[in-house]
């Protein structure tokens, strides 16, 4: 057992981190916000291997596993990289052009009946929309989608298309692929939330070190310190739950895939929400402004919390495993 990142995994992480910091650092957010999705940025992400990561070499991939995918999505999550990242990654083996970024693939998770409105993330930017149903995956051409771009999405970096009616679509994959999408999608969303939990901890810690009140840094007060210590515990729990779920997907003999992935989604979801909220709080009045980072992270957390199953959904799945 060596539950530590190997050199290749560390290199992947460093490479992506420096790319993402450069292209999506917080100083660039005002510009990105004007147009969150661009084809140029999408091609760049494709070139970085974000979508083709796990494809066989023959199909232009690098044959990496879910641990590497989780590390990549953790980095994308840290800097709120926009776009239908998870869907395009999952579709790499299913929809031609997805891996190279030429075909922009988004999706809607319809595996469980709900009264949710049909809100498609980046709906106006897509070429293909995948409908994830429990018995299979249907493909819809985006040109056939009728809907209204929502004026004010919660996350300024995640535009939404409110679709009035869904076309039936063409069945392109069966129940096995649908199950794979649901499980892997949940883990990749958890990985992005891990990135959020980490970066909001970093931001809040740095702010607490430098912001002074009562003639000393607010981070010297236990009231602030203890909030941050709890954030540290939550981010750590999220990190190892996400990595363990990746390792379990890569080798299912080491554990129970559903239990590992659902646990990761619960713990990472909890960590991101907790840490993003504490980040807003520790920034004080500045945390309530548009110009500083905390609110973007909190808003993105809600998007990811509602992707591929919420905390309660996954908590129930874990419970079902316990009772089995």
């Amino acid at each position, binding site marked *: 057992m060596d539950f530590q990142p190997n050199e290749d995994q560390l290199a992947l992480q460093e490479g992506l981190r420096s790319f993402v910091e450069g292209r999506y650092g917080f100083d660039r957010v005002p510009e990105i916000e004007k147009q969150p999705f661009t084809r140029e940025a999408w091609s760049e992400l494709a070139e970085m291997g974000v979508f083709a990561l796990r494809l066989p070499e023959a199909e232009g991939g690098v044959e990496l596993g879910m641990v590497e995918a989780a590390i990549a999505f953790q980095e994308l999550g840290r800097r709120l990289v926009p776009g239908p990242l998870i869907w395009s990654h999952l579709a790499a083996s299913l929809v031609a052009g997805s891996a190279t970024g030429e075909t922009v693939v988004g999706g809607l998770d319809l595996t469980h009946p709900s009264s949710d409105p049909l809100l498609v993330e980046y709906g106006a930017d897509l070429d293909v929309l995948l409908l994830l149903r429990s018995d299979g995956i249907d493909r819809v051409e985006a040109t056939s989608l009728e809907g209204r771009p929502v004026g004010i999405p919660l996350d300024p970096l995640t535009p939404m298309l409110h679709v009035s009616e869904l076309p039936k679509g063409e069945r392109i994959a069966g129940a096995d692929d649908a199950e794979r999408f649901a499980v892997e999608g949940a883990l990749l969303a958890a990985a992005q939330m891990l990135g959020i939990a980490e970066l909001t901890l970093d931001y809040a*810690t740095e702010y607490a070190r430098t912001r002074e009140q009562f003639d000393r840094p607010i981070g010297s007060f236990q009231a602030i310190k203890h909030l941050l210590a709890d954030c540290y515990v939550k981010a750590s729990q999220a990190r190892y*739950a996400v990595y363990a779920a990746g390792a379990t997907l890569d080798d299912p003999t080491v554990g129970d895939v559903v239990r590992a992935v659902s*646990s*990761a989604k*619960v713990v990472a979801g*909890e960590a991101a929400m907790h840490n993003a909220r504490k980040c807003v709080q520790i920034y004080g009045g500045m945390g309530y402004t548009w110009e500083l980072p905390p609110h973007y992270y909190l808003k993105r957390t809600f998007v990811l919390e509602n992707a591929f199953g919420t905390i309660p959904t996954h908590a129930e*799945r*874990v419970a079902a495993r316990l009772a089995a």
Partner: protein
Amino acid sequence: MDLRYSEADEKFRRELRDWFAEEVPKHGDPPGREDWAARREYDTGWQRKLFDAGYAGVNWPKEYGGRGATLTEELVYYEEMARARAPYIGMNFVGIRHGGPTVIAEGDERQKTTHLPRILRGEEVWCQGFSEPNSGSDLASLSTTAVRDGDHYVVNGHKIWTSFAHAAEYCELLVRTNPDAPKHRGISWMIMPMDLDGIEIRPLPTLLGEIDFSEVFLQDVWIPAENLVGAENDGWRITNVTLRFERGSAWAADIIELQSFLEELARLAKRITRDDAAAWDDRALRQEIGHLSAEVESLWAWIKFSISETAKTGIPGLDGSAIKLGFTELNQRIYETGTRLLGRAGLVREDVGPDLPSERIVDKFLNTLSLTIAAGSSQIQRNIISERILKLPKEPR
């Protein structure tokens, strides 16, 4: 990142599993909690069996009679121990986990040969004399004095929370040997035989009503100077050395126990009727239990990461405090959920219905209240995390 155990680890696992399967049933059920003689016999008897089978002091170096196991073998050991529901370390706790490792690291040859084999064989029980009524979280402020007189130290003071004091032969004792030095620099670490004159043990019932720990009053206790471990006034550093032996792997057994307890709660919830339906039909309860289980999984993964890190670097990371904080708080929440699930059956500490394990669950819940206080309270852990890991400025002290 690989969670697979090596073939050697798996071989060790099979060997352990067979041995536990054979020996655990033979050792029988633990005696009543107030029967101290029987408890001592039970705990040290099991220790002796471990020793004879070569499993005592699994992480102690071989030269001192331990197994010298690798960190992953240690993890396997705790996993199998929990799976087999093998007896807990019990009264041997201080000797095996604290006193022994400190003597290994800092003791002289005579101290090592005198104590280590006897601790491993279950022939010597140790207790801990660290905390004092006015020195809890601020342990370094302790005021028990030791004054050198010839080849002895004369010790006076008052210790508290001393587990198994009346069953122990020896006490790892922190004393102040230099009252004029800054508080961290005047402390010494010594081995106090518990049969010396001047030691008075006064049991202090816990909120469980048990007398696991005591107050220990020391009045002119003459401790031989050869019982000083390490240099005089170097006791604070030595105490922190001991903490390095706490590598997190010991939590492994508790983690597995927590997961099986949550499975037990799920089964219990299916049997219990609440508000005209099975308790398990309550979605909120299922989600709560699932959520707790997810958190246990995450701590388990964290421990594996931390152990792998230590195996690679040779130095335990800084995460011990954070794992302790996360684990103890979670443990408490889990047993609170269990006690709530019992409803009115949780109002008694003995079993009053078939399949209603009130005694075990309620007592365990009460016991978990100590976890966030002992060995550095949750608040102290948060201070450590924020100052040593997050590098936040120290508060004025």
